[in-house]
């Protein structure tokens, strides 16, 4: 399974990567912010269906394009609009959660997370 981890903090990306690898998900790409992610998502999509990411795990608060904006961009795209999307964030603001839910996400992970939480959430999202 091809996964994109989006977070401006290298430590978070590393942690998430370790957990995912531990869960048997090893095809992992990292993006440092929303724009980087959006570029990579489209880049891969252009190469063809089989290259598309099968899961995006994104932070919410990032410089430039935020996780919410990334989600909005993904969901409005005809090519990658159906990619499973997981939010991993500290943001618990009501309106934002509601909006992400309306746009459609597969899980909402609250930082700090541990391996068990990620495992559970991936199961919830139908990934595992």
């Amino acid at each position, binding site marked *: 399974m091809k996964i994109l981890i989006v977070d401006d903090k290298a430590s978070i990306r590393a942690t998430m990567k370790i957990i995912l690898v531990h869960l048997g998900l090893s095809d992992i790409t990292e993006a440092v912010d929303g724009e980087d992610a959006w570029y990579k998502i489209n880049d891969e999509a252009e190469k063809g269906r089989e290259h598309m990411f099968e899961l995006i795990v994104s932070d919410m608060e990032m410089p430039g394009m935020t996780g919410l904006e990334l989600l909005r961009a993904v969901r409005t795209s005809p090519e990658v609009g159906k990619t499973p999307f997981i939010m991993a964030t500290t943001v*618990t603001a009501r309106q934002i*959660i509601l909006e992400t839910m309306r746009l459609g996400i597969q899980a909402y992970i609250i930082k700090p997370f541990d391996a*068990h939480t990620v495992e559970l959430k991936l199961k919830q999202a139908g990934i595992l």
Partner: protein
Amino acid sequence: MSNDGHDCLDAMSSEFIAEIKDDLASLEPALLAMEKKGAGTDDDLINHAFRSIHSIKGGAGFINFKELSSLSHAMENVLMRVREKTLVITSDIADALLTGFDKMKLMVERIGKGEACDYEKEKIALQNILNPDKKALGSLASTTQFPSVHKDSDYLPAEAYQVLKPLGTSTIFQGHEFLVDKKRLDHALAGQKFIYAVYVRFETDLRARNKGEDAIVDDIQSIGDILFSDLEESRGQEEREGFFCVISTILDLPLLSQVLEIGKTQMTLVDRQFADYETLVKGVSSRVAKDKPAPEPVEPVPAEPDEDSAQGASESILSASSTAQTLRINVDLISRLMNRAGELVLARNQLRPFLAENAKENSLASGIMQNLDMVTTDIQEAIMQMRMQPVIDLMGKYKRVVRDIARRISKKVDFILEGGDVEVDRTVLEKLANPLTHLIRNCIDHGIESPKERVGRSKPETGTIRIKTSHQGGQVHITISDDGAGIDPQLILSKAFEKGLVTEDQVDKMTQKEKIALIFLPGFTTSEEITDISGRGVGMDVVKTNIESLRGRIEIDTVKGEGTRVHLIIPLTLAIVPSLIVSTGAFKFAIPQVSIKEILYLEKGTVQNQMENIAGSEVLRLRGRIFPVIRLRTLLGIRTYIEATGTGEKEEEKRKALADRRQDAVGQDAIEDSKKRMQKKDRRRHHWDTTYVIVLKLGENLFGLCVDALYDIEEVVVEPLSEYIRHLKCFAGTTLLGNGDVITVLDIQGIAAFSSLKFDSIKTAEEKRNEAKEKEAKAKGEKRNLIIFCSGKNEYFALELKNISRLESLNPGDIHYTGHLKYVEYKGHAVLLFSMDEFLPVNEFELTTDEIFAVFPKHISSRVGIIASAIIDTIETDQLIDRDDTCPEPVLGKLFMDGRMVQVLDPDKFAEMIEEKLMMTKGAGASRENPHS
């Protein structure tokens, strides 16, 4: 949906009552604020009051408390009209609401006692406000269709539906089961969704948040699916306060609570979830289960959806009903714990010397000690904090007191609270309640004038009472100020005089502050008539005693016509007092650290120099400030024993401190004594040679307490004095030291009172002195060192030391005469001598004595000496030199020293005159020489 869980509810009722009490506590200030703001009340406030009353009603319903439920319902109806803006709160409505509130409070207090409360009057008063149209709850219109399934399972094929039981111990879901569509449930479970049962309260969750029913349905549908809801059924049922629903979502419980804006206690996972969930995350849940084997028996306080809901799903499942951060604990238990912690501190102190001894041999000991220290301190602090309560808990109540009293005597008063979040030990807070009530009553009754009077005095019609609380150096300062009439010291005085509380003699000596302080005398009152508010003459003295029993102080500042400010200074806690251990003679004492401003060590010699005597008290001058000093030794009459060298016998110290000698023995004794000391045979160290002065704070005043030695600062637990010695003013209590010694704790205030320190008179004397000094400084600059010498028999002159190069003692035989000029030999030179009679109209100098002196002034072109019959003294003086125009040159002015009149010479003028004389002698010499040649 019947409530068949009443047995469980009984166990929970104390929790509900506690909650109701909280709600009541928050209701009163809201009602008061609403009254004040009238039509301008903001929605937040109304909603707040509404929520409070509504949850009271809800709570009352849960514990089947019909009276409370009915009365709160009546109040709720009134508040609802207010919220709908169809009713503006007037004072009458506020009265009805507040009396209703009082009755509710009474009901709650009486709940366990089985006494019935008659609340008809209050209820009718509330209903009268609304008159005929008494609209009930639940008229919200909503057209939203809910996927609703009836519980009536008879009509439904059993296999199509599944019964869900809510998990957890929350009373909200007690006895409830939900029947949901099995297919949809299975679908949700297959998607690993969480299935929650949620209770939505119409009032608190919807109306109070300005949400409609459709809005919450929208919200739920954005985050998941609704599997069950009884909203439709709840429609039209007035007694229903909310509806249940079962929803599936991927959100964790804290997030769900956040999104729906519904308390976490109002939502819980359901049983089907648990089975699947357990298999799903068996690792996690088994881990959590180990930590929490059974659901908490204590129902937590419902927590608002909190911000830091950053916990994983794993926790949320088991902690769904125990997410609270607060826990109610019996006050007695805390008190017991507190006492024990105090004893623990003592035990630690006792253990310390043993461990310190062992530390040399066993390195483990110091580690143990450190650990013990840390833990003890931590426990102590934690328990302290447990006992801390914000002062608003007490102060908030006065809003009502002020309102009621002001209304009763038709005065208009604004009540302002500042610093309500300052935390104080609850025992302190409890003891503050009575004195504060007295003070506030006084403010309204005596302080604030009637609106008419105020307008007459061009003050705003509404008076202001302000209570300000702040922390300052381990103490709490509370200031109660009003902008009323102030206290007239003259009135106080005449009243006190009338009642025979003071004598005329005393009155004469009183300062303004002391006069005002007369109101603290027992039996004092200025009120002509006794009202039910004040004037019984048991006010201020009780206040003072109360405050003092808290080891606090009370001070009053007042300006007639402008207002009064009462200042209370109170310790944060009464239990454990960090104290400095000091000793005098063979006795140790503890001085509470909060009273200590600084500690001075006065070395031998400096003691005498720095001590002065002003207005009959010993004072110490420190960095320009001057304050009275008390010697603990004298104060307590402690005798000193001196161990005689060799024999080891103890002999009572009989010598007195220098200052004593100075004071009471200006005559022979002092001289004799100092002579003995001059012989230096007595080499015993005297206690007064060196001393520690502990500078203590007493309100704005400082005073010093002299002690012999200092020890550590220890945290002592103060025990009250035994009954037999309780009347002793100087001691606050006793305590046990680490080594097992029992010592007394000094009462700083008591000591000051006992020694009748005259801060004011010292201050006045000092001010006078400073003024005089300033004057003098302006007149002639700073201190002078003068040499006083005598010319002839009893004529005294003074020259400043800095203008004199040296003094010589001469034998009259050494003087060589040339005509009328006198010379002496000095280092091979002839030096001309003058006597004062050559400059001034004084008696001629007669060289009759065996020894004479010569004073050599500086700044003269050649060596010249002035003959003196005696050098009296060199003195340092800042005394004002009495100048007068009749003084012949070169006299600057006259001084009176020890009964002598001293003529101070102007050095410049004197030098000029000497130069003139020299010229003349030269001229004379020249004219004499000339004829020879």
